[in-house]
């Protein structure tokens, strides 16, 4: 016998540093402003030197816990989805679980599916919670994504993440249904030991992002029998501003429906953090009864779709966290490329120095 599950709380975090496409283009001799306009990215977030997926996940998870009175020892699972885990071997999740006091009676795992590992974590928690194997599960999507210097990816790859507490009680948004669409489509990859990912250029578009996001959105909507106009909000994976805007139009959604959850124009592509952060922005302002569609995309490739309904409980968690998306977006400090390069570890230092 399974029970109805949903989001009980959420927390978000985005580093305050930013860099503008124009500044990146200045260094590489390209028209950064035009590049940014083309990608619909006007600034991207940059992690500080002491920030990584673990600190970002911890910030988000702490905000998530602050919004509710849930005993952390009732958390039975914690998943951190990312493609920039600081360690190749050694979980990020254990540090985050320690930080929120959820240890030791829980299962922990780090997940990877390009940009959709965070939403994969939500699905895993849904199953465990619905089946009563656990009371609460935490799913986090966070990244400090990599873009090789001078590569088009450098204009978009940014940092941020969001955490979700999934449970059966005091639900702020019901997870009515989820649907995934997966194929082997190698549009973007990074092999063990490589510092920067490779991508298939335009192959990342039609046969990868658009095919999978459309199929996922259509799949979840068919599953629940909904249409675009049934939703107050829609969030699509956002590697840039252009792709989600285009796919929304293709699926019959309006700019009004996607604008709240479309954060890439201001913070860049946060990869595993992208849809979780967009959803956090929506939950910051959604009203009871609002219906939300979220479609994450991960290269390689697959989509995770969610159909959600906001409940009356939403009002109770608001105001308990200072870290709203509006605040996170507002708090920004622009860097020049040299400082950005230093922050991102792109400057080769003398051995032994920090």
């Amino acid at each position: 016998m399974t029970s109805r599950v949903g989001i009980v709380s959420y927390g978000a975090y985005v580093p305050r540093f930013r860099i503008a496409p124009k500044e990146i283009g200045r260094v590489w001799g390209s028209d950064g402003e035009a590049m940014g306009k083309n990608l619909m990215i006007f600034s991207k977030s940059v992690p500080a030197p002491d920030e990584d997926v673990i600190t970002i996940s911890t910030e988000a998870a702490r905000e998530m816990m602050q919004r509710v009175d849930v005993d952390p020892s009732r958390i039975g699972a914690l998943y951190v989805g990312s493609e920039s885990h600081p360690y190749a071997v050694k979980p990020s999740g254990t540090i985050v679980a320690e930080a929120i006091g959820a240890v030791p009676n829980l299962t922990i795992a780090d997940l990877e599916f390009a940009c959709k590992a965070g939403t994969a974590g939500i699905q895993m928690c849904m199953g465990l919670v619905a089946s009563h194997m656990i009371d609460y599960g935490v799913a986090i999507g966070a990244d400090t994504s990599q873009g090789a210097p001078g590569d088009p990816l450098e204009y978009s790859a940014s940092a941020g993440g969001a955490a979700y507490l999934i449970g059966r009680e005091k639900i702020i948004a019901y997870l009515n249904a989820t649907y995934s669409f997966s194929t082997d489509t190698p549009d973007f990859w990074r092999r063990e030991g490589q510092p920067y990912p490779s991508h298939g250029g335009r192959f990342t578009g039609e046969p990868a992002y658009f095919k999978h996001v459309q199929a996922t959105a259509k799949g979840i909507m068919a599953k629940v029998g909904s249409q675009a106009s049934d939703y107050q909000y829609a969030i699509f994976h956002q590697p840039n501003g252009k792709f989600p805007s285009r796919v929304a139009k293709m699926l019959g959604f309006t700019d009004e429906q996607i604008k709240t959850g479309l954060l890439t124009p201001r913070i860049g592509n946060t990869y595993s953090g992208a849809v979780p952060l967009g959803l956090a922005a929506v939950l910051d302002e959604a009203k009871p009864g609002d219906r939300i569609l979220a479609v994450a995309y991960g290269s390689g490739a697959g989509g995770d779709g969610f159909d959600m309904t906001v409940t009356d409980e939403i009002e109770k968690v608001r105001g308990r966290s200072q870290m709203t998306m509006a605040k996170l977006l507002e708090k920004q400090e622009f860097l020049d490329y040299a400082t950005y390069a230093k922050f991102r570890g792109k400057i080769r230092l003398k051995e032994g120095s920090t």
Partner: protein
Amino acid sequence: MREVAIIGIGDTKFGELWDMSFRQIGIQAGLAAVHDAKLRAEDIDALYVGNMSAGRFIEQEHVAALIADYSGMARDFTPATRVEAAGASGGLALRQGYMAVASGMHDIVVVGGAEKMTDVPDGLSNDIQNSAADRQWECTFGATFPSLHAMIARRYMHQYGATREQIAQVAVKNHKHGSLNPKAQFQKEITLDTVLKAPMVAEPLGMFDCAPNSDGAAAVVLCSMEKARNYTDVPIKILASAQASDTLALHGRPDICTFRATQAAAQRAFKQARLEPKHIHLAEVHDNFTISELLAVEDLGFFAKGSGGKATADGQTLIGGQVAVNTSGGLKARGDPIGATGVAQVVELVTQLRGQAGKRQVADAKYGLAQNVGGTGGTVVVHILGVA
């Protein structure tokens, strides 16, 4: 020598055909041509395939046998031959087929051209294309295929006072024609500003001055003229087939703004066809770069040396102009799957001469010319076609 006619044509859409393999596109085009000619496999005496670099693009050599096998021709042990001359592979394959029929060796020959370019990363694709130039004396020292054409463009502007805008007009015109071709890779019109403001590739040539990487295939069926009417009411006659060579490297030439191989092949072709440039209604020329089309329309004799830019800017190469150039959209807009290009040019000429080109039809087209270039003019093949 016997007269030779084209009795069937076929091609695929050109573009990034992610869902199709080399053999699929080759066979799609070949079968379309064979169906167009209403042939059976056993009617075909031989197959010629133009292909530049399947060995590097898809790591498959021996592609003529591959296509013979997958099209069913191998069942009848039909001979299949691959022809390679870089960008001129397709045109040269057609010339081999033409000679085989003209000589009386074969009655019916299928000529195909195919390339699958998008399975490799862009950098590798550029390197493969560089191998059409002189690897030892040009590319090893840093020259690339685009930069060699950029040098030609620079020199051309210096020598003839041509403007950047005039060169860019070639792309504007070919996109306009491409917008009328449902099989073109790019079916969107562009403005002069788009060309001028595009990201730089090799100064002065930007992104919109260069033909794209494409997947695609094209095929034609050749038949002796005496038997052609058994298959079609509208045979198109090959009035001339000519070929010429020049130095492989640009620096071996007295003047890099003239492709002497184009001039030589054109002279031979016009002599064989007993025609002059003024008689030609439409021409498919090898615009792998915008500057290449200006050289082509001059070296073929349509316009005086140095006046191609002005003629283009004045609209004389548009459909309805003095000579309609690249009505298909050319390599720039229709796409440039290297080995397929020379055959696709002839598919366009036949479509026009049959009066089946729809919105891009050149009125009363009787004579068409195709110029297919390998490398920076090391090989040039020219064919002239006419309504029989």
